[in-house]
């Protein structure tokens, strides 16, 4: 392979008879060096490019914002992110049901296994956002079969979300309210569920006093509060 054979075929064999020479180049040092370089690259570089998640927070301009929130809240799902990886939700306005203990429900992040129809946040959101979810999932299949391009997919899915939001008014608005005990992971997990369930409208807001009251009632159940629960429930 690395041999260059220089055979001069001189049939006459009289004059300039050259010695048969094999020119072998030893590649071992080259391999050594390459291996070193590869090791260097493997240790000092990364193949993974970090992924990002887009997040838009509401502006701090207070003009009429409170009013808007109230209007939207009547048909909204509010998710309260508590400590210890707990998640609670209620539908509509909290003022409507201060006396109803089942108003605020706890819901797990993911299925713990076991029961078939156990509800978790994903199944619940998909159920609530079913029309949009089905349509976008169909689009996803088309994308996988390469019937549509990536660009078309994004445009169409935004279109579907907008339509469900504005014309049909079937898409739920999700209000995410993390408590002081929530971790960053909890927040990202919840936003992730919004992406998975194709929820177009979601926003992150601060807890209201009503939410604190509901959480307090839910977590205390009339018993003595732990410090963690007290912090989650009341200021």
């Amino acid at each position, binding site marked *: 392979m690395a041999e260059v054979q220089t055979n001069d075929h001189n049939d006459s064999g009289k004059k300039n008879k050259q010695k048969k020479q094999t020119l072998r180049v030893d590649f071992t040092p080259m391999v050594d060096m390459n291996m070193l370089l590869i090791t260097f690259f493997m240790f000092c570089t990364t193949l993974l490019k970090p*992924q990002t998640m887009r997040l838009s927070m509401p502006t701090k301009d207070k003009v009429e914002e409170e009013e808007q929130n109230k209007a939207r809240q009547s048909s909204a799902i509010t998710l309260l992110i508590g400590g210890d990886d707990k998640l609670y939700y209620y539908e509509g306005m909290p003022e409507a049901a201060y006396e109803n203990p089942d108003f605020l429900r706890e819901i797990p992040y993911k299925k713990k296994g076991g029961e078939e129809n156990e509800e978790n946040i994903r199944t619940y959101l998909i159920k609530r956002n079913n029309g949009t979810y089905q349509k976008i999932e169909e689009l996803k299949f088309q994308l996988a079969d390469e019937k549509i391009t990536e660009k078309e997919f994004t445009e169409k899915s935004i279109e579907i979300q907008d339509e469900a939001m504005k014309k049909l008014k079937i898409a739920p608005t999700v209000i995410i309210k993390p408590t002081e005990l929530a971790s960053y992971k909890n927040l990202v997990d919840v936003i992730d569920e919004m992406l998975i369930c194709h929820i177009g409208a979601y926003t992150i807001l601060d807890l209201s006093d009503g939410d604190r009251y509901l959480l307090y009632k839910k977590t205390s159940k009339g018993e003595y509060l732990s410090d963690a629960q007290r912090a989650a429930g009341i200021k």
Partner: protein
Amino acid sequence: MAKVKVKKQSTFIDMTAMSDVTVLLLTFFMLTSTFIQKEPITVNTPASVSEIKIPETNILTVLVDDKGKIFLGLDNPQDRVATLKAVGEDYGYDFTAAQINNFKYLATFGVPIISMAGFLDKTTEEQDKYLLDLDNNRVGIPTDSVEVKDALGVISKDNEFKRWVSHAKKACADRQQALVESGVIKDDEVQPLQIAIKADQTTDYPVIKKVMDDLRDMRENRYLLITNLRTASSE
């Protein structure tokens, strides 16, 4: 007794094929990977399904560790220097050419402006050692709002973090404006500085909220949250 004649055998192994393989591997690593950036703290980012890649240029990374220490990373050295000068001016600090040159090589920085000059005089090893002591309040960019009188005697409530961000934003815009004027890039190629938040998944929500609130005060409402890709194993 007849001697056993050992046949002379060549032990030469042809390394050409091996060399080919290593060169191929090396090329692959060089083309696909990116260098790991040196960061003062290691953060374990949460996982998400979002597959948006982080933009390569014009990005300001806000690195938040689980105790709320903030470090900033700016990708363009030119912007970095301009930002340092502007923030130094705000607080009445001047930096020598050597200090500025040192700052040019700091991809991620996080020292209060008071200790910045001293920090930049250190060697790289000393800087690393200094940053290791995370309990030191001279590490991390301060986010407490202390009223500061600037050079013109105007009292401002902006904390250092806000100043760094707003000056970085301005430096990035100015640099691109200059490029537009000299005809290097077109008007529509100008990208505003995007803010990426890179936080550890165990970080408490109030810490993140504080960062976001500060950014929202400056009407920065869109962020990129840096996440890992969620794989089946991490489900």
